[in-house]
């Protein structure tokens, strides 16, 4: 399935900003599950400096600097991506989860795909005993990893209420867990905290989800949103498998990956520093358009 993607971010400042420096992680990455056909990022006003490099977790990062006064900053990222996610490994015949843990700790890959990177607590995704215990109920001794994690995903989907506006990007994982509500990011973090608490390598994935408009209605412009889910390393053979607890499905051709990291901080689409005194507001518009016209 080929998608046309548009991710447009607009910062509006109440007072003129003289200087801005931003790191953009807005270029999708080609992998076994997708091929990036085209991508571009356009920044207005025109940056005085622009650099590209590959980030620590494989994402293409663009650094821009704008050093003339401006009161609006627009970052417009567009791409075309061909998604061809391989079928998930068989749930029952996958490795026991403890074996996966053992392999992860022995692993010799420290690069972006290496499971060792995704074993530990981070500032944003702390390991909390009660979340670990919650995950333990699904990760029974000797259980195949895909089956165990699928069940955990289903429980998160059932036990937690989807509630936009209840949490923010900075909401700690235990808070969303205790309140039993949140959005995609909170559910992803709960899965990460619980699984890593037991030593299972789990990554945070940011990206887009194809949305299907209600029957007979046109797709609304800019109505889509960025999405987050998790990817679990299921051993050398099975590799990384995506689980989307917000929708209780395995990631497949409706999921377009933007960036993968240990937590949100590794994949944040935009990190910026500006010289400013006044207030700032942010507007994000996302369009995910399948090319077959549906």
């Amino acid at each position, binding site marked *: 399935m080929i998608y046309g993607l548009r991710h447009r971010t607009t910062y509006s400042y109440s007072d003129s900003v003289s200087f801005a420096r931003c790191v953009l992680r807005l270029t999708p990455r080609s992998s076994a599950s997708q091929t990036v056909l085209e991508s571009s990022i356009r920044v207005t006003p025109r940056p005085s400096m622009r650099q590209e490099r590959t980030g*620590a977790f494989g994402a293409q990062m663009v650094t821009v600097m704008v050093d003339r006064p401006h009161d609006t900053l627009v970052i417009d990222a567009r791409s075309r991506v061909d998604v061809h996610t391989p079928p998930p490994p068989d749930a029952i015949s996958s490795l026991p989860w403890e074996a996966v843990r053992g392999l992860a700790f022995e692993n010799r*890959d420290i690069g972006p795909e290496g499971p060792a990177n995704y074993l530990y607590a981070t500032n944003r995704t702390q390991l909390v005993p009660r979340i670990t215990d919650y995950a333990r109920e699904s990760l029974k001794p000797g259980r195949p990893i895909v089956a165990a994690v699928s069940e955990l995903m289903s429980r998160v989907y059932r036990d937690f209420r989807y509630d*936009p506006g209840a949490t923010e*990007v900075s909401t700690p994982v235990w808070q969303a867990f205790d309140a039993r509500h949140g959005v995609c990011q909170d559910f992803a973090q709960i899965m990460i905290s619980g699984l890593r608490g037991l030593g299972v390598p789990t990554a945070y994935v940011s990206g887009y989800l194809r949305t299907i408009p209600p029957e007979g209605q046109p797709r609304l412009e800019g109505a889509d949103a960025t999405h*987050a889910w998790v990817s679990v390393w299921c051993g050398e053979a099975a590799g990384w498998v995506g689980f989307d607890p917000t929708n209780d499905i395995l990631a497949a051709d409706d999921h377009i990956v933007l960036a993968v990291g240990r937590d949100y901080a590794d994949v944040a689409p935009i990190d*910026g*520093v500006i010289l400013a005194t006044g207030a700032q507001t*942010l507007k994000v518009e996302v369009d995910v358009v399948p090319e077959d016209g549906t």
Partner: protein
Amino acid sequence: MATDTSTEPRHGGGRDAPAARRLSAWLKGYRPLPGVPDELFDEHGRPRDRWIAFLGEFAAHTEGAFGIATRHLRDTGASHRVYGEDHEQTWPIDPLPLILDQAEWDEITAGVTQRANLIEAVLQDIYGEGKLVSEGALPAAALAGSPDFLRSMVGAKPAGGRYLQLYAADLGRGPDGRWWVLDDRTQAPSGAGYALQNRLVVSRAYPALYNSMNVHRVAPFFDAFRKGLSEAGDRSDPRICLLTPGPFSQTYFEQAHLARYLGFLLVEGDDLVARDGKVYVRTIAGLKRADVILRRVDADFLDPLELNTSSRLGTPGMLEAIREGGVAVMNMPGSGVMESRALLGFMPQLARRLLGEELKLPNVATWWCGQPRERDLVESTLEDLIVAPAFNTPNPDGGFAGPRLVADMSPDERAAFMRKFADRPGDFVGQDVVRLSTMPVLRDGKLEPAPFVLRVFAAATPDGIKILPGGFCRMSDRTDVRAISMGEGARTADVWVIDEKPVERLTLIPSRDDVKVRRILGHLPSRAADNLFWLGRYIERAEATLRLVRSLCTSLMASEAAIHASGETFDTLRRLLVEWGALDEKTMASSVLEAARASLHDETAWGSVISLVRSAKRTASGMRERLSPDFWALLLELEADLGGDEVLGSEAEALKQVEDALQHLAGLSGLSQENMNRVAGWRFLDMGRRIERGVNICRFTRMLAHDKATLDDLDLLLDLADSQITYRARYLVGLALTPVRDLVMLDPYNTRSLAFQLTTLKDHLSVLPTLQDDGMLEEPSRILLPLATEVETEDARRLDADKTHRWERALMRASGAIADRFFLQGANAVPTVKLVGLA
């Protein structure tokens, strides 16, 4: 202790009888701990020669000298801050140094040198080719768990070619008498400045003893260290900065001390700007390149754009500049990964693999439990081990942190630990318990053994690794020395390495003739200019407030001026104190004594003298490396005098205190006039004073020399302007409005007049650097030049309150213009807002 204390020391003849008795009592009363080696007594229970040589002399002559030397410490503000506390504490140094002989030191030198080279080689690999991991010598997970393994630095080449410029090893002597490495310090090792400080104190306390014992000097090490750093820059005369987290850091004093001693620019993250792949310092002459940065900021806080986005200590874009090779940051960000305990257990194999050598100094036996075999071993011998976090991960929920002896844990703690260990053994290491040797310390006149840890420093220099001969020694009150940190009542000692032959005396005097003569040390950073300017303003305001309080007190006493106490003059005085925030309305109405007390001592009033002095001190503390120790000492003394809890019983006592404080301030002015180089820094201090004085004199004149002024008013004005004597000498006729106005406002020869302040300000601005390259005037001069001319050409007979007020406002505008032009205006970078919610 059953020892042969009759052993006659060989050194220090001519000792008197009381000293000999004291020494004998010290030795008899000394009880080393069973089962651990001691520095003073050897394994046969005999005191070692080098200690007897020291203690004999120490008992005879030098005990009292130490008190004087430590008072110097307090007076100069040598201090550290206990984490989480507001106040700095005076540096806790013990009078006895740790004394090591040459042979032993040679072993330590060889061991630490080898380890520095080994760690450098490991860092080169893990941030370079990555063979250690891909070939299985290091598990990826043993690196990945460290918050200091910076993936964004993989593949980046350090500008100077090295990762470690300064490395420190914490050593302890184990039960077998050998030295062991307990911990590696690779991020931004602290303590070298304290070692320097300890040496200065002790060598000052007993110079003769110090010189007679052939103690290795520390100065050559610091000289080599500085050379090593400057080699890392790509220009011949690189600008070297010491990047500090700021005055609230635990070891700020040490950082300022090092910066001053080594001649580095002390900067905070805000002082730096990264652009075009390079890093610059904001100075009063614009952006100037920072070639080499010795950082004391942990890597995670260095760059809010790429690392910890909540950091206020860093500089956005710094990592990019490092990757581009435009700046050498030492130690290279990412070096901190080597502080992980998880890696300790791998060091012996890594030494064999990378150096082809055995470790010359063993490290404490450590097992990382992320490996099944090691985990099983630790689990089966848990009772005899210390368990510790494998990585330096901040622990948000408190709980288990720091090394613990499993046997010491309460049942609850143990259960909690076992649960975590079962789920995530890779978060932990098990370590052998090393009971550390003891050294003598002096407590309440008695000699006692205390366990200690020795931090040894290694610097990369053009001639290879150099070791600081000596180090930073910390002693503990507790037997569990593994937990020594400066926050826990620990004490420190100087470390003497004794040579058999006299050592070469050398201080920091360059040996070559290639030193370029320079009269100005680079460009003044904007932050320092800002601080100096405000220091000047605070000091001047404190002086003016003291003069107000003095007039308040004398108004009741001086017979001729008794009339002050009645009438409007007195009210004006009190109103000024209220307007300046030195007094509140309520206290103003009470007695003169109460008002004086409050204006001097009320800590809650922002304009009281004590508050102003504290503001001055706070401002000064942000740039201690630029002020002479005498300046700082006077400021501390002034604060102590005013901040004491002594209650002023009478106006006479208040007056005495005011006079004393004014003398202190005169001392500060004298020091800044006579002891500060007439470079930009001094000019900013002086400009602050001049602006403040000019504004004040305008204000006093408006309030006291208005058209309906009384004789009392004029008399008070001359007091406040310190111009009584001049006036009386010049005008025998007595007080009159026009000559008073002329003297305090327009007379260019009176150092207290507005005219004089403006002339001085004009002079300062004319020699400061300009950013304009088109020959146009900058804003401060645009305001001050016409003002100075107007005042110069004014006639006192036409001077009225409106004009005075206009001039006062112009001066305030000039102050703002100076801030805009020279200081860190608008440097408050903020992060962009993050997405509020995701779908």
